């Protein structure tokens, strides 16, 4: 063998290449197409969610003259948010907060009941990645064909497929960004402007940015977005309990796993034939047989794949199925799924959800179309007039949320002998009427003066009253009237 004169040293290079990889390359996942109930469900949800996304900005909603007729519109220029019958001013942004709270609690509730159902079915990242994988399969074939293509040297045919795939992805990205901007402007007008190059620069740049993010997240990064960028997988540990329905491999029934030939006995072995179909279809590149993992988005495609196999080898379905943590230890293949949906945790989430929704509904239904803000001058706090009376200044803001021009009378009550007048009018003029155009705020300066002896303390309460002269609606705000130290 070796020349005895040469000593064989037992050594390894300290900086061997494979040991000094500081940066890990992403290992590409080529998921195989799954067939079955969950795959069908995912197609349906994809169609519904995409339809909602693309159709919503085109729904019209008549709000009368002078107001946009788009059902859902974030009007940044005029600072209004429209959602069907709801119309929100910037100072009512707490409705959005309420909506976000409802969204968060709903997510908690759904996660407590069904695990990461949001991640698996309706998260935009999942829907678009699914769409991108669909395109990839259409152009390059299913998993095996794609694996071969990846290894194959670059030829004209491979290049063509690659260009076609990325081209379609980018088109999807453009359409995604293109639909997004319609939520921020009148959709038909913007649609025309986009093609005649009359749209605002921000519209084009928004489309460009969203095209890039859609292409990168859906086409290139895929599962990395879920695993590295999204906080939800890390939160799920706090949301998921022993009784949460998640995609579960029944280890008690499946193990010990191993290859199985037709006709062999199923005695003393598990039902898992280690065919790896569940691994091949997984878009996250994990093995569900390792148990519930942070990476698992519970898309249930492994359930479809395994059920297919179970049918072929004449075993009951459900080796992998939706089940609770507790349920996976039952080895009986024909067991019934037992889930306690009503538990303290789900009751608590439901109650909070109902409470927040009720508060939101109540405030929305009682939303005033007339609002009044009275801001007292602080500099100077008060002014002594030549006849010894005390004057205070106020800025009165009247918010007319209707779509008509309205006339409002401003009056003030609270002190004996108090006079009120608007800036410019002078104390003699008592016709305190303000005209506020539709859907806008008017701000007027008001002065109140009262004889010094009508104040019994340094600070007195006065009411500023605004009356809508057309409807008689009255809005009152109590403010203070300040005088010298008593």
């Amino acid at each position, binding site marked *: 063998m070796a020349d005895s004169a040469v000593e064989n040293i037992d*050594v390894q290079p300290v900086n061997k290449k494979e040991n000094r990889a500081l*940066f890990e390359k*992403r290992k590409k996942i080529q998921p195989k197409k799954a067939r079955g109930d969950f795959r069908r469900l995912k197609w349906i949800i994809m169609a519904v969610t995409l339809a909602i996304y693309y159709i919503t900005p085109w729904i019209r909603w008549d709000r009368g003259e002078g107001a946009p007729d788009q059902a859902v519109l974030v009007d940044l220029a005029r600072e209004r948010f429209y959602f069907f019958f709801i119309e929100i001013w910037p100072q009512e942004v707490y409705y959005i907060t309420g909506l976000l709270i409802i969204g968060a609690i709903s997510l908690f509730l759904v996660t407590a009941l069904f695990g990461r159902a949001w991640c698996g079915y309706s998260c935009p990242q999942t829907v678009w990645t699914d769409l991108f994988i669909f395109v990839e399969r259409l152009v390059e074939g299913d998993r095996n064909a794609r694996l071969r293509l990846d290894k194959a040297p670059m030829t004209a045919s491979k290049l063509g497929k690659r260009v076609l795939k990325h081209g379609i992805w980018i088109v999807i990205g453009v359409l995604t960004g293109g639909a997004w901007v319609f939520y921020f402007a009148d959709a038909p007008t913007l649609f025309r402007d986009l093609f005649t190059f009359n749209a605002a620069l921000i519209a084009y740049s928004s489309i460009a940015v969203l095209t890039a993010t859609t292409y990168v997240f859906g086409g290139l990064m895929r599962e*990395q977005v879920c695993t*590295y960028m999204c906080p939800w997988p890390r939160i799920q540990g706090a949301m998921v309990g022993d009784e949460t329905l998640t995609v579960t491999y029944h280890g008690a029934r499946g193990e010990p796993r191993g290859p199985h030939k037709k006709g062999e006995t199923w005695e003393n072995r598990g039902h898992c034939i280690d065919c790896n179909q569940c691994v091949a279809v997984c878009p996250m590149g994990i093995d569900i047989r390792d148990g519930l993992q942070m990476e698992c988005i519970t898309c249930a495609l492994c359930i479809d794949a395994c059920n297919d196999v179970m049918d072929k080898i004449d075993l009951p379905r459900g080796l992998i199925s939706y089940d609770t943590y507790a349920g996976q230890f039952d080895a009986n293949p024909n067991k019934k799924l037992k889930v306690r949906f009503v538990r303290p945790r789900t009751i608590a989430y439901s109650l909070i959800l109902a409470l927040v929704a009720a508060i939101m509904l109540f405030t929305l239904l009682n939303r005033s179309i007339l609002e009044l803000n009275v801001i007292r001058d602080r500099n*100077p706090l008060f002014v002594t*007039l*030549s*006849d010894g009376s005390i*004057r205070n200044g106020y800025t009165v803001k009247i918010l007319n949320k209707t779509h008509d021009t309205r006339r409002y009378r401003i009056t003030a009550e609270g002190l004996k002998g108090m006079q009120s007048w608007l800036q410019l009018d002078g104390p003699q003029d008592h016709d305190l009427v303000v005209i506020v155009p539709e859907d806008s705020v008017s701000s007027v300066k008001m002065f109140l003066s009262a004889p010094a002896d009508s104040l019994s303390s340094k600070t007195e309460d006065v009411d500023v009253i605004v009356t809508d002269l057309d409807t008689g609606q009255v809005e009152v705000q109590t403010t203070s009237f300040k005088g010298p130290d008593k």
Partner: protein
Amino acid sequence: MTEKFEKDEISGTQTTGHEWDGIKELDTPMPRWWLWTMYATIIWSIGYWIVMPAWPLVSSYTAGMIGYSSRASLENVMSEAAAAHATDRAALVTTELSEIQSDQQTYQYALRGGKSAFAVNCSQCHGSGAQGAPGFPNLNDDEWLWGGSVDSIYETIKYGIRSDHDDTRLGDMPAFLDDELLEPAQINDVAEYVLSLSQQPDLDAEAVTRGKEVFAAECASCHGENAKGLREFGAPNLTDAIWFYGGDKETIVRTISKGRANVMPAWVDRLDDATIRQLTLYVHSLGGGE
């Protein structure tokens, strides 16, 4: 040593070789995208050096390809702002002051501009809320030394009071004691009388009667027979609740003895006409305008 550091069996990742109380640290590789992001920022910074002003030289700096400078950009913004204001400012100067008040667009522009010009030029003496101070009148109230109409206010701001401008408003409160016009006792009497005009309590009735004669002889020529003041001389009304320098007896005695001659500068040479008009309308709007 056959391997540099031990590999973790479960994750297959190399450890850092550090160990504390049996706890070892994984040397988990960074993801590639992180590395690319870092490279991208480095490339970005090189591009930035080329395009934008970046490196200081001995007496200048590298200007960058697009010639950006924050000073020029400020000048641009300022001249854009000036251009945007041009129409409103022109309207301010060409329209009669009293007519501006019925033109909402110009009037609101004037009030906003007046407010900021007031903060810059006037608040030092009159206070940020125009509330005044002893010797500096409160512009919110309804007493005006020189008149509270827009035209009077305009003239006051323009030429000032006792300023060095030829058209300035003039009016002197003499120093009756220092110039030996009155005896201390007479000053005491007239001070008592002045206090009685605004119904102050605890006065010496005899002194008031004596003071009334002194007032008629020495003071009425400016302050008026009824002591309600004369705007021609900027002489204040002594019968109302508002005091320019202070309404206690000590201050009144001091005012009569030493005289008063506070100055309001003339603004005509310091501010342009549009700004003076803005200030006029703003001051007029504070609540006491006539």
